[in-house]
């Protein structure tokens, strides 16, 4: 069933988004924002995950999510306080939900009792649940019953009476025992895979329930929409003990997606068998008059399954919700009953912020498709620049219309390129949102007090760049927490506040994105770094380094100054990963440190990976490009000071440093090099800040190129990172500086 697979894939995609949303919400909640909007967003996310899981029969996930939801519910009602411990538990629970989702996605089984501990803690936290919760659980007709029943029993063992009062603080006056419920679902209720039947079953478990369908909103057949929602219900619930809260609880999940009124019928009408419609008749009369003749008969219809759309998820719901403001006239809002004692009405007013965000219209597109467009736009840019180059003065004078057309083409192409890049761009929030909890965990493990501040989370970067960003950021924050921030005692002694601050910020600067991780810790201990570097032979004993060079040493592979390896860092892997990851995506890392005041690490990243900034050079008669990100400087050979080494090779002396020289002409076997005087040195930086000097015949200029793979139709070549197509349609090869550096010269092999 490919359809089902599609739905599943959509569901899993959404789960990832919802889980990210959970992280985000909890980051705020942790900061003390306990507003209902946040809680509701959390609740909704968990509920959506649970709903889909139920539809696909992921019983473990449903069971866990339900327990989680129950706790959240209590919190929302104020029955349970959201203590830091509770928040920590919830955050742990998010992980478990994520694990369940992952297990379901890859179709593996988690241990039977996975998350049971947390589930137990939920139950204990939410202890003293109202007994009515048992009924709906057992009534759920999805096959997760065994799991749920276990909780239910656990609950049953809890002492009940006292806590029952705790969250139904103002006891309602004696009940008449007869409740009139009007329930008019909106389209999005079905879109969120809710089923009125389940709600009614839950109600039925509270007392004697009579259900009547109301079809007064049904339009004439001509205006009938196949997926329109025209059916509402009036329900009479007779139970001497039930409270309004209990009734509303049943509708908790669909709140905001329906019109709901719960009215207690006054004792004078108390007569269990009496059809409730009688009481309503005076109010209903005016509206009956403009009804279609068949409407009264419809009142006898059973609460059959309404025309619920396919099992659809939040994406669809969003679309529906976006439409909600321009609802088709087929579903007019129901006039409020006036003559009644309306206790409360749940209108889909909701939380404005959350609602607005749900209203964002989006479509889901395979990244491959976008990449194809990006590639084609790249081609278009090249073709366009090629056309422009063809225009000489005579053509310009003769074909003015053509010139104008080309100018427009150039503009449009540029606009198109920007727009396509914008499609791939994503806010860095998706990576940043994982960091608060990392900081929190680090603080716990290191027994330090750490506050993480984040700025510019909405800065957008290309998706592929973002994907590469997670590991480096994790390592950098670890490093800051472990090495940068001092213990509270040390901080106090140094006259700083007890809590260390790590600031994570992102901003766009020209064609780059700057990501900065700053801390107000002790700064890099340069003496120690240098000492360790000398011990490990990273730096020669007599070599003198500038402060900046010493700071940069922390990126050397296997480098660590910590005496004791901790769980977090100190193993010497980490910062070199940062450097290599960032280099891989064409970025650079810069670190600056102030003793006693802190450290700032700056990542400079390209806006996109699809386009590379390069320097175009000529080697023999062939064009080559060198990524700008790896170039340190260029100079004329005539002004460079070369030295001979015994092997016959050359080294270049740059400001006291001796650098390996690679003559591209020789290395690429492209004939005998021309006179040295007219050639150029391009000083590049390979991995680990190792410099290498490339000698080229000419420097043509800088430009942006689209990277093309050589492996697609051929195979990888030593020293070449790929190809690109120049404005004249020729192929230029991209020099792989790192590859050239590590490969042995093969000059003598031939």
């Amino acid at each position: 069933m490919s359809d089902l697979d599609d739905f599943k894939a959509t569901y899993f995609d959404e789960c990832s988004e919802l889980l990210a949303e959970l992280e985000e919400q909890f980051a705020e909640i942790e900061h003390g924002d306990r507003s209902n909007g946040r809680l509701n967003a959390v609740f909704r996310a968990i509920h959506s995950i649970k709903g889909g899981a139920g539809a696909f029969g992921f019983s473990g996930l449903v069971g866990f999510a339900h327990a989680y939801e129950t706790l959240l519910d209590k919190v929302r009602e104020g029955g349970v306080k959201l203590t830091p411990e509770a928040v920590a538990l919830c955050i742990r629970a998010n992980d478990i939900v994520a694990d369940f989702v992952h297990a379901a996605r890859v179709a593996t089984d988690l241990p039977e009792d996975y998350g049971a501990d947390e589930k137990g803690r939920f139950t204990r936290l939410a202890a003293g649940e109202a007994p009515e919760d048992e009924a709906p659980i057992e009534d759920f007709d999805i096959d997760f019953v065994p799991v749920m029943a276990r909780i239910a029993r656990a609950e049953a063992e809890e002492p009940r009476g006292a806590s029952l009062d705790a969250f139904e603080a103002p006891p309602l006056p004696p009940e008449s025992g007869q409740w009139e419920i009007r329930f008019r679902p909106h389209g999005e209720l079905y879109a969120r895979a809710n089923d009125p039947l389940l709600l009614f079953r839950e109600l039925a478990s509270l007392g004697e329930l009579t259900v009547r369908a109301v079809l007064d909103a049904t339009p004439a057949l001509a205006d009938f929409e196949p997926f329109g929602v025209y059916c509402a219900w009036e329900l009479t619930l007779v139970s001497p003990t039930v409270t309004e809260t209990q009734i509303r609880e049943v509708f908790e999940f669909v709140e905001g997606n329906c019109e709901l009124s719960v009215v207690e019928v006054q004792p004078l009408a108390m007569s269990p068998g009496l059809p409730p419609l009688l009481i309503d008749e005076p109010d209903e009369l005016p509206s009956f008059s403009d009804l279609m003749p068949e409407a009264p008969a419809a009142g006898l219809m059973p609460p059959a399954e309404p025309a619920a759309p396919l099992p659809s998820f939040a994406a669809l719901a969003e679309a529906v919700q976006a439409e909600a403001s321009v609802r088709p006239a087929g579903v007019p809002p129901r006039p409020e009953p006036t003559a009644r004692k309306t206790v409360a009405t749940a209108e889909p007013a909701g939380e404005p912020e959350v609602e607005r965000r749900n209203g964002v219209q989006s479509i889901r597109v395979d990244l491959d498709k976008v990449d194809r467009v990006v590639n084609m736009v790249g081609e278009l840019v090249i073709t366009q620049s090629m056309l422009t180059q063809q225009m000489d003065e005579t053509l310009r004078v003769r074909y003015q219309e053509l010139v104008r057309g080309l100018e427009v083409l150039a503009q449009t192409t540029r606009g198109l390129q920007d727009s396509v890049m914008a499609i791939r761009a994503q806010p860095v929030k998706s990576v940043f949102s994982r960091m608060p909890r990392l900081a929190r965990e680090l603080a716990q493990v290191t027994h330090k007090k750490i506050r993480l501040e984040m700025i510019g989370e909405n800065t957008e970067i290309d998706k592929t760049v973002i994907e590469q960003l997670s590991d480096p950021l994790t390592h950098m924050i670890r490093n800051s927490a472990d090495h940068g921030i001092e213990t509270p005692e040390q901080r106090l002694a140094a006259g700083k506040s007890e809590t260390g601050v790590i600031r994570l910020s992102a901003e766009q600067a020209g064609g780059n994105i700057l990501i900065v991780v700053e801390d107000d810790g002790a700064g890099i201990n340069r003496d120690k770094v240098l000492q360790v570097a000398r011990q490990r032979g990273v730096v020669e004993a007599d070599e003198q380094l500038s402060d900046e060079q010493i700071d940069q040493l922390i990126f050397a592979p296997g480098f660590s100054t910590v005496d004791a390896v901790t769980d977090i860092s100190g193993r010497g892997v980490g910062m070199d990963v940062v450097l290599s990851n960032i280099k891989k995506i064409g970025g650079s890392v810069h670190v600056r440190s102030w003793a006693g005041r802190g450290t700032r690490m700056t990542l400079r990243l390209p806006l996109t990976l699809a386009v590379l900034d390069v320097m175009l050079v000529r080697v023999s008669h062939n064009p080559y490009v060198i990524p700008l990100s790896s170039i340190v400087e260029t100079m004329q050979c005539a002004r460079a000071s070369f030295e001979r080494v015994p092997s016959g090779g050359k080294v270049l002396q740059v400001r006291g440093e001796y650098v390996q020289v690679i003559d591209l002409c020789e290395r690429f076997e492209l004939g005998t090099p021309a006179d040295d005087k007219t050639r150029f040195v391009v000083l590049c930086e390979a991995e680990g800040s190792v410099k290498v000097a490339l000698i080229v015949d000419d420097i043509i200029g800088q430009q942006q190129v689209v990277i093309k793979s050589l492996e697609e139709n051929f195979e990888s070549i030593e020293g070449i990172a790929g190809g690109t197509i120049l404005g004249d349609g020729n192929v230029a090869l991209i020099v792989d500086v790192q590859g050239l550096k590590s490969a042995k010269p093969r000059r003598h092999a031939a």
Partner: protein
Amino acid sequence: MEAFGLRDDSVDQAAVAAQNSMQLIAFSIGEQTYGVEITTVREIRAWNGATPLPNTREFVRGVINLRGTIVPIFDLRARFGDGQTSPTKNHVVVVMSVGEKWVGMLVDAVSDILTVSRDDIHQVPEGNSIDTELLNGIVTHDNKMVGLIDLHAVVSGARAEA
């Protein structure tokens, strides 16, 4: 009805033909004629230079831009060990698909499209290892020998040995 019958007939014939015979694109390198199955050929274009690839064997002439994709060019003459071709504008690049990849073959000229029967394919006589390695078989057409090129063998071993 008759029309339908006719069409069915022709389909059958084509199917039979497809089983027993194959169409070749024949091209020449010096005096020799070689062929590849026509279904592998993507396009034929005039030689217009290529960007040389470093650290590759001499029969890899470089790469060209084929509508935004980088395609390597193999010099068939050099591949057969006869030294590099000195290409002119009259030389031809036959672009073919080999498995998932597209490659170009630099040849002197494309001569013909041949239809040969699969039954007429002869084994390559043992002897010169280059022949047995690079040819799938030999067919005779107009009393001339046409070597069937094994494309997978031709494109392998392109990287220079260290």
